């Protein structure tokens, strides 16, 4: 005869099984929805990328890896990949540094915090196309505010291939730094003041308090913000599309802009899908790397 203790544990495991079943059952609608909305289209795009498909000209035949082979030697593709990488690294780095600084400044602020938060939200709440249109006029070489503030110099922000990408990075930083700032600020508000008071008693203040208390506590949330921002930046489209159309001389053409041109402007469905798949794989890899980093941090904590 089983001891009462064994009995309870077996009963508990039976309950576990039914719980797990119920869990799957409850998850099923979400999984089906996700499957239908993301997995199925993703597989469809991969399928398309293996074909020559230009519906306008009635072209629909198997291509195998031909599109991918061409991409390896396509200078426009490599240029777009480089632009995407540069844009992502530069904009995400600036956004996280500025965002954290803003959050710290907000916490230190005595009055008008609400107004400041509302103003921050404004930039983030504007649709990106509106932001882009606004920057188009700000950057206008002869009538724009930026050049006016620089003392009437005629800097050719968007028309000079060396300046166009940095100009777009700035516009993106302006728009999305508030997102990083607000996430960090929310985390800062949850750090109990006693921690700092205790640190002060121990003689740690300023830089030391930041390094020992603030930074370790903010880092996880900052990583999450970075994850979101990196994935967004890798798929950046609106800002370049509106401000430069990928120019001048392709100096701001990201992978998604190139994919858009192939897919919707020239209707090369197969080739455009191949570029789309590359972006997809890239995004997945980066997301995976970030998630690993976040998990490892959590484990360490």
């Amino acid at each position: 005869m089983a001891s009462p203790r064994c009995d309870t544990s077996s009963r508990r495991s039976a309950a576990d099984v039914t719980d797990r079943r119920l869990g799957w059952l409850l998850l099923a609608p979400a999984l089906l929805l996700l499957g239908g909305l993301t997995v199925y289209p993703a597989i469809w795009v991969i399928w398309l990328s293996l074909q020559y498909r230009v519906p306008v000209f009635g072209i629909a035949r198997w291509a195998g890896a031909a599109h991918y082979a061409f991409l390896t030697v396509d200078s426009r593709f490599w240029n777009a990949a480089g632009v995407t990488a540069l844009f992502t690294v530069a904009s995400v780095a600036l956004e996280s540094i500025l965002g954290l600084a803003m959050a710290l400044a907000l916490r230190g602020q005595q009055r008008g915090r609400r107004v400041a938060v509302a103003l921050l939200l404004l930039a983030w709440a504007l649709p990106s196309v509106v932001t882009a249109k606004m920057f188009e006029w700000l950057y206008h070489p002869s009538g724009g505010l930026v050049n006016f503030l620089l003392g009437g110099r005629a800097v050719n922000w968007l028309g000079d291939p060396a300046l166009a990408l940095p100009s777009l990075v700035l516009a993106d930083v302006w728009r999305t730094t508030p997102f990083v700032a607000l996430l960090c600020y929310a985390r800062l508000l949850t750090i109990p003041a006693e921690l700092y008071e205790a640190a002060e008693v121990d003689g740690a203040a300023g830089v030391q308090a930041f390094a020992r208390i603030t930074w370790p506590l903010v880092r996880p949330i900052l990583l999450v913000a970075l994850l979101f921002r990196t994935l967004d930046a890798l798929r950046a489209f609106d800002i370049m599309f509106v401000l430069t159309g990928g120019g001048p001389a392709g100096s701001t053409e990201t992978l998604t802009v190139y994919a858009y041109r192939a897919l919707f402007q020239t209707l090369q469905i197969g080739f455009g899908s191949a570029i789309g798949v590359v972006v997809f794989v890239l995004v997945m890899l980066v997301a995976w790397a970030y998630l690993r980093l976040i998990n490892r941090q959590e484990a360490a904590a």
Partner: protein
Amino acid sequence: MAPRPARAALLVAGLLLALLAAGCGQGPSGAGPITLVFKHAKILGPADPVPGLLRRFEAEHPGVRVQSEALTWSSDEQHQFYVINLEGGSPPFDVMMLDVIWVPEFARAGWILDLTAQVPPAECDAHFASAIEPATQDGRLWALPWFMNVGLLYYRKDLLAKYGLAPPETYDELARQVRLIQAGERDPRLDGYLWQGKQYEGGMVNVLEALWANGTRVIDERGRPFPEPERAREALAALRGLIESGVSPPWVTAADEELTRRPFGDGRAIFLRGWPYALDLFELPDSRVRQRVGVAPMPRLAHGPVGAASTGGAHLAVSARTRHPALAVELVRFLTSDVAQRAMTEGAALRPSRPALYHDAQLIARDPTLPALLPLILRGHPRPITPYYLMLSTTLQPEFSAVLVGRKSPARAVQDGIAQVRHLEQALGR
């Protein structure tokens, strides 16, 4: 006054009748109203004449209702909308507004109906040849022109008169005039010649105009790219030269229509390449250049007999998936008719595609620019008429842009352009 029960009975009877009527309208046995869906960009301008025209068409065709559905004003987005909907096979529409450069592509894709049999030749002849030509493929007509556009050289009448100059016929002359006027005015904020050099369709148009101005083309009848490479190189070098010499400010390499129209409208440039819509804006009561703007044909380069501006504009076509082809064709013919184009010219300040209207005294009274525009439109040039035009344009735009910003030599860009177009042809199996 009827007693209460009687009134209630009347009410019930009325309701029943109303229900019956509604039932008949929806029932399969009744000949319900036919609805035509008309997709078009929102018509800007003082008064949108489209609703009035559609009501008029409905009055002439009892039992037909035309539902007008607006598209965005951005040409790229319109194209994207059509491609997704026509290729994806979702909600049908009957009549659609097309940018002139898409007509061959849509015809080739089988998305629009062949109108050849329904439109008498005389009706085609009433439109500008440069508007009918791009709507024709293999001798068949696929769309009718709705309104017309043409590239113009805007100039400051007052400034040219002050220095005793006539509008320039060549780019060299234009450059000399800019230097003369800039030296005389001593205004560092006065730019010379503004045009659109951004990497987009408008930039492509500006380059095509330079190629034509030098007596060459981007692609010949047999689809060969840059049939006269030397002349193409010269044309590209001339455009780059405008920037290097300071005749045009460097920022034209990122400029589209509006970015150039505004400084000119603020009186801060001597010349502008633009479309006719800007004329109306320059003549608004609060405009700083009101009555100081003239229009001239685009200038030419060394090998061009005359300068040539690109034509543009919108066409109307019938979707291949319409369930009422005869009525849809009727609607297209009505909207492109003399009467309708008159209303479009009066209400929306769009330029008609029928030359006869440019001589019409009544219309000229409403739009005094018409007589000056006629010769310019007659000299206009359609962009390459091929189903591959958009592919050609998006493929070459980065090459041209690279020349304009000085990243590539004209020779290199032409060479790379030829290679790119060849690759495209291979991918298309041509």
